[in-house]
């Protein structure tokens, strides 16, 4: 038997005929749906994500289209109508924009920035963490020292420093969020990769003289994924919250890209004159997003943690 065939038999997927009826995926789904709250949160998150993706079709008006915005409509309370008979379900902001539409578009930006920064940070963190765990020795200690140093500074401070240097903009806030997050991923991956590395199947793969790259990506990486998925969800919620905070402080996104944080900041000026809706509704949208992602993440942590399994 050639080495390749042997490897297929020993290490690769079981042929479909031998697959159990209860696949790992199905078991995972049934474990996850054990918690009603988490299931509800997941559905809620899907709805929010769908709203964000299909924003241009769902929003009653386009808040960027100046032709549709009139200053005459500014600061209208919720459920009020303007002269043309358009109803603003959640009222309007200081510039006369429909708040519901602004929130839907803001959700798109907040979620987009949060999710993409999480994914980029995961890719970088994974690569760095795997390298550290697999290479070991001096490479490992240098990388982990950098990670430790970075984690000893609060995320908001690092992001603030970077944005003070870089200025405003979607790309800049992405850089800041990725810089803040990658270290968490690197540490998580390294921890589980170290455990996996000492297992027999890696030894077997090494004995079969497989390339380093193949061992790392095909054998070690898939087994490190469960803890990563948990970190991704929780970090995404964190990134969304951080982006909103930075935009609220006025150092995050420019006013041409109004995320939820910026909408809240705009409404803050009007709050002292009892125009509560401009700040409250974007805030509620932000909270619901963050909390649903956190709930899903918590349940994932319980389901994917082998130590907690019965």
């Amino acid at each position, binding site marked *: 038997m050639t080495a390749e065939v042997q490897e297929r038999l020993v290490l690769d997927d079981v042929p479909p005929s031998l697959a159990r009826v209860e696949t790992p995926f199905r078991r995972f789904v049934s474990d996850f749906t054990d918690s009603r709250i988490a299931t509800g949160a997941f559905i809620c998150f899907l709805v929010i994500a769908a709203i964000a993706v299909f924003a241009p079709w769902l929003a009653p008006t386009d808040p960027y289209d100046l032709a549709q915005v009139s200053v005459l409509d500014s600061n209208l309370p919720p459920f009020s109508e303007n002269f043309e008979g358009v109803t603003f379900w959640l009222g309007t902001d200081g510039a006369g924009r429909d708040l519901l539409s602004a929130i839907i578009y803001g959700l798109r930006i907040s979620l987009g920035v949060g999710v993409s920064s999480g994914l980029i940070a995961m890719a970088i963190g994974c690569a760095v963490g795997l390298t550290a765990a697999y290479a070991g020795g001096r490479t490992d200690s240098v990388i982990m020292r950098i990670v430790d140093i970075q984690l*000893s500074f609060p995320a908001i401070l690092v992001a603030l*420093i970077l944005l003070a240097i870089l200025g405003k903009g979607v790309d800049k806030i992405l850089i800041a969020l990725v810089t803040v997050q990658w270290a968490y991923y690197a540490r998580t991956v390294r921890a589980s990769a170290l455990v996996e590395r000492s297992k027999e199947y890696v030894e077997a793969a090494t004995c079969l003289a497989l390339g380093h790259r193949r061992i790392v990506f095909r054998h070690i990486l898939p087994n490190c994924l469960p803890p990563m998925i948990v970190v991704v969800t929780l970090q995404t919620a964190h990134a969304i919250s951080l982006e909103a905070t930075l935009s609220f402080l006025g150092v995050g996104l420019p006013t041409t890209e109004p995320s939820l944080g910026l909408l809240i900041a705009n409404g803050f000026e009007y709050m002292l004159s009892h125009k509560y809706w401009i700040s409250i509704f974007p805030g509620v949208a932000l*909270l619901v997003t963050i909390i649903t992602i956190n709930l899903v993440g918590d349940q994932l942590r319980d389901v994917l943690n082998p130590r907690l399994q019965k």
Partner: protein
Amino acid sequence: MQSSLVVLVMSLLVFIGVNIVGNPVDMLINPEADQEEIDRVISDLGLDRPVHEQYGYFVFNALKGDLGKSFIYGEPALKLIVQHIPATLELAVAALLMAIVFGIPLGVYAGLKPDSKTAKTIMATSILGFSLPTFWVGIMMIMVFAVQLGVLPSTGRGDTVDVLGVPMSFLTLDGLSHLFLPALNLSLFKISLVIRLSRAGTREIVHMDYIKFARAKGLRQGRIVMVHLMKNIMIPVVTVLGLEFGGLVAFSTVTETVFAWPGMGKLIIDSIHNLDRPVVVAYLMIVVLLFVTINLVVDVLYSVLDPRVRLQDQKS
């Protein structure tokens, strides 16, 4: 060694970055000023020299404790920041005290009666404290207490009393009422943290033999909790809070902006908006220095307190 390297790299990054972004000349000089006036201001501020030379001056001056003059206020940046430190420290210390005063009793209660409704409510609230963005909670507090109920002021420090030449808010009633909301806002996250820590600690410790023994001896529940239990949960709580103090200073930027509290955090945000580079650079350097110091002290304390860490270091 490593700490000073961090400081050096930071200074370089911060300085070069801040200098490349934005053109302060446009921000600071009256657009109607003639060319001569503009030139004069540029050479006054040292903006006409190449960047590396500016950095050389910057490091040299920084070692003398001179981090440049603020473009906006015309005062030395370092002095400006030092003036704003007491307000931030006051806020951070108040938040720290609140975390202890609210966090420990709630956490101990939740640990003693883990199945009661109250305990579950406490834990659910602490999850909210972790996940809600600070600035949003601050806005809500202003809306409820300042706008709707009108019981507490929303901005500023109120009346201050000079203590050793430094204005402090906590000595006057008006100042205290101004301090309460921002401090609570800043400490919410830490309160949740302390609740979790002291709950976990309590649940571990109530099953220890010495607690059982104290019960068997017939001591009152109050004495067991206050003396035998409290002493032991304080250790992790104090350690973590010490570590988190730097985090409080960092997060005070958010709280100070929401409540218009005139501390370092508000100063830095305003300076970023105004492209007031010397102040931004000076703030970042001071905060990095602060963190490096905190980390160093914590590392040293660990090896003093925990023999395992000390022994490991000797081996390697």
